[in-house]
C-alpha cells in the first residue's frame, strides 16, 4: 500500500520510494527512508496535495508523488 491509502491521522512505516529520480533523492535526503514512521496529517481543501509528517516536521507533497512512497504492510 502507498501513503495515499492512509486517512488523515493515520500512521505507517516507510518501505520504499520509487518514481522520479530527483524526488526520490530529495525525499531520502530528508530522511524519508525505510523504517521511518510517517503520519498523514491532512489533505488540502481540494484533496491534493497532502501534508505528511516524519522526523518531526510537516511536508506538503502532491498525491501523484506520494503514491510512490510505499508503506510496510501491517
Amino acid at each position, binding site marked *: 500500500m502507498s501513503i495515499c491509502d492512509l486517512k488523515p491521522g493515520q500512521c505507517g512505516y516507510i518501505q520504499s520510494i520509487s518514481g*522520479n529520480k530527483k524526488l526520490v*533523492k530529495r525525499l*531520502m535526503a*530528508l*530522511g524519508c527512508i525505510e523504517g521511518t514512521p510517517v503520519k498523514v496529517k491532512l489533505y488540502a481543501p*481540494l484533496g491534493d*496535495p497532502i501534508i505528511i509528517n516524519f522526523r518531526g516536521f510537516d511536508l*506538503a507533497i*502532491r498525491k501523484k508523488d506520494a503514491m510512490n512512497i510505499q508503506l510496510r504492510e501491517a
Partner: protein
Amino acid sequence: MITAALLGNPNVGKTTLFNYLTGSNQYIGNWPGVTVEKKEGYIENRVKIVDLPGIYALDTFSNEEKISKEFLEKGNVDVIVNIVDASSLNRNLYLTLQLKQFNKPIVLVLNMMDVANAKGIKINYEKLATKLGVTVIPISASKGIGVEEVKKLLESGNFFSPVNENDYHYTDDEKENYRFIEEVLAEVIVKEKIESTTIGEKIDLIVLNKYLAYPLFLLILYIIFMFTFSWVGQPLSDALDEYIISGIVALLENLLQNSSPWFSSLIIDGIVGGVGSVLVFLPIVMALFLGISFLEDSGYMARAAFIMDKIMRKIGLSGKAFIPFIIGFGCTVPAIMSARTLESEKDRKLTALLVPLMSCNARLPVYALFATIFFPGNESAITFSLYLLGVAIAILIGLLFKNTIFKKDEEPFIIELPEYKVPELRNLMLNTWEKGKGFLKKAGTIIFAMSVIVWFLSNFNFNGMTDMESSFLAHLGGVIAPVFKPMGYGTWQSAVALLTGLMAKEVVVSTMGVVYGLDLHNILAQQFTPIAAYSFLVYVLLYTPCISVIAVMRKEFGNKMMAFSVFYQLLLAWIVSFIVFNVSSLILG
C-alpha cells in the same frame, strides 16, 4: 580576510543571523526559499560572510544546491557556518554530514534554542561537538541571543581544527547516514516532554480546513486591506495631506507671492503637485507592506502555497512558482529574478510572463488616489478587487498559455510547512522602514524628475511658453488618447499619465498631479465617471509595469520574450479594461 559560508536548511534563520552579524537588512520571511541567490556581508572588514540559499542536501539536483556547491568548491571558503534548527536536529544534521566532505572547519550554530527548550529538548553541546568534529554554538537568532559569540569566534579565526579523513561519515546510502545521526543524537539529546498536539496543529486544522481554508484566506487578505485603508494607512495619509503637504503649499504660496506666475506654477504645480501627490501615499504603502510582512513572518505563506498548489498545477506551474508570485506583490523585478530557481525553462518563462499581473506596490498609490475620490468608504474593497482581478487574470492567461505556447511537463513539488510563530517586531519594523525609505528615495529621484519634465512639457511648445491645451504634452497625449476612448478615459491627460507611468507606476499619479494642479481631486472627479475610473485602474493593473521590468525580461530571457511580454500585456490591459467598462456600463446603466 576570512571567508565564511553560511549554510543550512531552508527557513532555519540564516538570513536573520546574517543580518545580525553584518548589520545589513536583507529580506526575511518565515517560509522556505526567500533567499535565492548568494549575498555577501562583512564583519568589520575582517570576515566576509556569504549567505547561501537554504538547502536540505548537496546532491539532489536543485538550482539552489548548485549555487551553494559551486561556492563551496570555488569560493575560497575558510570556514562553513552551518546553521541548524535545534528543535529538528535529526534532519538538519544530514546536511552537516555532507558538508564535512569539503574538509573545512565547521561551526555548527544551533539556532532556535528557545523553541527547542520549549519543546523540552536538552542538548549536550560538548558531546555533540566531539562526536561530529565541529564547533557548536547554541543561539536564538531572532532574539539576538548568542549571536555575539558567533561573531567573536569568526573574528578570532580560531576554529576547531578539522581535517581528519576518518572523521567523515557520509556515505551514498541515506539509511546509513541517518543511522549514524540517530546514534549520535541518542547520546547527546535528552527529550523531557513528549509532544502532545501543538497549537500549530490546531491552527492548521482550522486554517487548512476543507470548507474554511479559502474563505479564511480571503478574509485574512481583506483584513490586511482594511488595515491599510480603513484603520491605519488612509487616516495617516489624510493627516499627512492635511497638515504637512497643505502646510508646505501654504508656506510656498506665501513665499512666492511676488514671483512670476509661471515660476510659482513650476514650484507649486510642478514639484509639489507632482511629488506631493505621490508622497501622501507613503503611509498606505508602508501599512500594506507591514501587513504582508506580518503574514510572511507568521508562517502562513507556506500554507497559502499549500492550498493554492492545485490551482497552480491547473495553470501548468510547479508549486515552487508560488514564491515569485508572492514576491511580485512587492515588486515585479525581484519576482522575475527569483524565477531563476525554478527548474524547467518552461516554468521560468511562464512565471515571468504571469508575475507582472500580480499588483506590485508601485501601483498602490494610483488605486488609493482613485478609490478615495470615486469610491469613498469602499477603498479597501476596490483595491482588494483589483488585486484579486490580477490573480484571476493570471490564472486565465496561465490556462491559455499552458494549452497553446507552453505544453507539458510537471515538476514534482514538496514544501516544508514551517511552524507558526509570532512575528518579531524588530524584523517587521526594519522591513517596513526599508520599504518606506525606498519609497521616499523614489519620490526624491525619479518622481521629482518626471514631475519637472512633465511640467515643462505641459507648459511649453515650439513657440515657447503656452497654454496647457496646446503644449507638447497635450499634442503627444492627443495622439494616443483615442486608443483609450472606448473605455471612457480618452483625455490627453490620462494618456500621458499612462505613458509616463512606464517609468514607474507612481508616476501616473504625479503626472496627473502636475497637469491637473493642486485641485487634483475635484478635477479628477469631473474627468472620470466611477466606471471609467475603475476601468482606468484595471488598465493600470494590467499594462506593462515599468521599464525596469522590461529590462529584466530582456536580460533574463532575450529580446523576443521581452517584446512578447510588453505587447501581450498592453493588449491584455486594453481588452480587459474595455470589457470591464462596457459590461459595467450595461449593467449599471
